[in-house]
């Protein structure tokens, strides 16, 4: 042994001195920092005007986070956002649809004829790839262009931490970390982003709970499915003046159900596999800041709307191609799609859905965004429709889709209110998209937790849909 470690002696001295102070030293140090900073601040800060703003902030906070009004106001705001989205997106959606489909598709076909392209090629490219992309564009762009800026404005204002504050008590009771409310909010944009954001939770146990339940936040890709089902099936039942209010109500209800599942699954996990202490944290309510409206519009259109839309289009192109192919390649007298749909049919019936929906969810594993277009294409492809409707479509081709027509097509495909409700439930409760699964794997580095995060929502979706279907049938609603 040469010279001892230079710090050894020092550490011994420190340890013996520490005995004299005990735990009080930390408090004492903190106190002197506080006193000193108060002294400095009082010298440098003076009040010129009245304190109107600060007290206004406080009053607003008292209302927004109050025990009685907090939740109703939250609901009302959420409702308002969806109502604006649904009511506002209708007109531009149908305009885009008639531009790209009614006007664009026939002209593309004419061009293909002019170039003497073979029918299989023009069918594959125009009826498969192009129409799928056009559909995604017209169905998704308008609602997203309304929803994302509104959501971003709420975020900039400082409302989201208030939501987290309101939900904190519930999460605490579920044995989860209060910050999970924030990661859940992130999940409403994108589950993959939500999973990454769980890094703000320090305890590994609580972080895993947050990861496993993030899929119950409805992501960008799933809003369009909910909004469409809410609009054409549930909203359509209400009198015309109320339909968009009812439609947005059904979307809000699904969203709340997701929060309920988040809490319930968290509670179960924290009492079984992931047992342990709940840790405390302090959540700061940031001041309300007047949002920079133009900047917000710009970033939410660029960062969110266009990125999500781009992803959807990129995914829609191959999905459209796949659907066109399985709809047009025939084996033993029926198309591959028809075979698959009838094979999945019994399971679909059990779940109150149908074979088409299940097949669409398999095709759409890479991205939830393309569920609705896939369902429509497959419905036209693989089910026998009335002549009047079938005349509008050849196998695997999506044509002009006004909301009313969509309703007509789906009803012809055997859809009922139960199918629509269960599709909304299944949109909430199914496996995360492949990007999210990959992100979970990257964050947990565990096959077991990745599998759990994938299978828990899927199993719940199966159970919930099956029970709903059984109850609805037993009560004779369908």
């Amino acid at each position, binding site marked *: 042994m040469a010279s001892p*470690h230079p710090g050894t002696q020092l550490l011994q001295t420190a340890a013996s001195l520490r005995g004299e102070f005990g735990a009080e030293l930390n408090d004492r140090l903190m106190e002197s920092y506080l006193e000193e900073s108060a002294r400095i601040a009082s010298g440098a800060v003076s009040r010129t005007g009245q304190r109107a703003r600060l007290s206004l902030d406080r009053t607003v906070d008292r209302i927004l986070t109050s025990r009685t009004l907090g939740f109703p106001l939250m609901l009302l705001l959420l409702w308002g956002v969806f109502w604006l989205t649904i009511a506002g997106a209708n007109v531009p959606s149908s305009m885009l649809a008639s531009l790209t489909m009614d006007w664009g598709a026939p002209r593309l076909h004419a061009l293909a004829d002019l170039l003497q392209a073979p029918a299989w090629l023009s069918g594959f490219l125009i009826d498969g790839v192009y129409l799928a992309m056009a559909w995604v564009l017209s169905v998704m762009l308008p609602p997203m262009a309304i929803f994302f800026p509104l959501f971003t404005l709420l975020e900039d204002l400082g409302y989201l931490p208030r939501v987290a504050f309101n939900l904190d008590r519930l999460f605490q009771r579920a044995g989860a970390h209060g910050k999970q409310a924030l990661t859940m909010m992130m999940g409403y944009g994108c589950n993959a982003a939500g999973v990454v954001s769980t890094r703000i939770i320090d305890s590994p146990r609580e972080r895993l709970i947050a990861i496993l339940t993030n899929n119950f936040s409805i992501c960008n890709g799933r809003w369009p499915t909910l909004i469409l089902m809410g609009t054409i099936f549930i909203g359509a039942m209400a009198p015309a003046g109320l339909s968009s209010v009812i439609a947005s109500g059904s979307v809000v209800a699904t969203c709340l159900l997701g929060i309920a599942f988040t809490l319930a699954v968290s509670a179960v996990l924290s009492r079984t596999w992931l047992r342990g202490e709940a840790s405390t944290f302090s959540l700061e309510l940031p*001041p309300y800041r007047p949002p*920079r409206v133009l900047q917000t519009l710009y970033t939410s259109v660029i960062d969110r709307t266009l990125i999500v839309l781009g992803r959807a289009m990129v995914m829609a192109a191959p999905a459209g191609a796949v659907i066109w192919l399985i709809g047009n390649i025939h084996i033993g007298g029926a198309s591959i799609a028809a075979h698959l749909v009838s094979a999945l049919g019994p399971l679909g019936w059990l779940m109150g859905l149908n074979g088409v929906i299940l097949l669409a969810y398999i095709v759409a594993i890479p991205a939830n965004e393309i569920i609705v277009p896939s369902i429509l294409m497959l419905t036209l492809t693989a089910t026998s429709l009335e002549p009047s409707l079938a005349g509008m479509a050849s196998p695997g081709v999506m044509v002009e889709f006004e909301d009313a027509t969509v309703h007509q097509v789906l009803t012809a495909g055997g859809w009922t209110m139960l199918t629509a409700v269960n599709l909304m439930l299944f949109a909430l409760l199914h496996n995360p998209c492949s990007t999210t699964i990959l992100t979970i794997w990257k964050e947990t580095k565990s096959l077991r937790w990745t599998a759990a995060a994938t299978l828990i929502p899927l199993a719940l979706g199966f159970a919930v849909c099956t029970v709903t279907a059984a109850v609805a049938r037993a009560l004779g609603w369908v």
Partner: protein
Amino acid sequence: MSPETQTAPAVPSESKCATCPVHNASELRRLGVNMDRWDFVVALMGNPNTGKSTVFNALTGLRQHVGNWVGKTVSRAEGGFRLAETNYKLVDLPGTYSLVSSSHHEEVARDFLLFGQPDVTVVVVDATRLERNLILVLQVLEITGRVVVALNLMDEARRHGLEVDARDLTRQLGVPVVPMSARRGEGIRELLQAIDEVAKGRFVPRPRRLDHQDPRLEAALRRILPEIEAAFPHLPNARWVALRLLDGDHSIIRAIEEGSLGDIDRMAAKALPDLRARELTEEN
């Protein structure tokens, strides 16, 4: 330490224009993440939700998402800018309220300050919540004096009827305090100038060190300080290390056991003559 050491003394002899702060700041080139070499490392710290990311974006031209909520910056982000012939690397650290407790965020921030040895540390503070924000500033000043305080959200303070005297703060803290409103782009120029001055040693900080006014604590410090100075003679923040040791700070104890504090000491020994030389040329 860097090629900068040779160029800095030459600056004052150039034309007046080149040393004029306005000229320098207007030369700002945002480098985004495209930088492979740098002369100075600048750390960006602050309480959560004070606008660190906005400042970061304004300096680097990057577009990190800025959200009005706490805990948004999960891991540290890096970017660069070039100003007055000098490349700066900017490291955005997660927001923390203090440096003395044990949350993951605080450890990331503190370890970078201690072991990353940034040339300048910018502490972004919320002018509307000065009292609480200064706690972090005081703690940072105990570790390093090479600090610039960015007094952000001045626009909000004005709206709230608060007047914050930046000059008084500069005097009290002993480091430059720059009033600004990052999201309106106000004060960015002045901040850059202050960073440049501290980095190049033109501003000699006299950081306010806390007197804990506790005879028992002072007695303990008197016993332990000589031992720290004997083991690590070049450490710039022996008093802070002493306090952390008395407080039983695990990561500091680990740093001594593993020798990383010894590494800092050796680095400081090499850097010191360098710094002195620079300060001498400034005085001439």
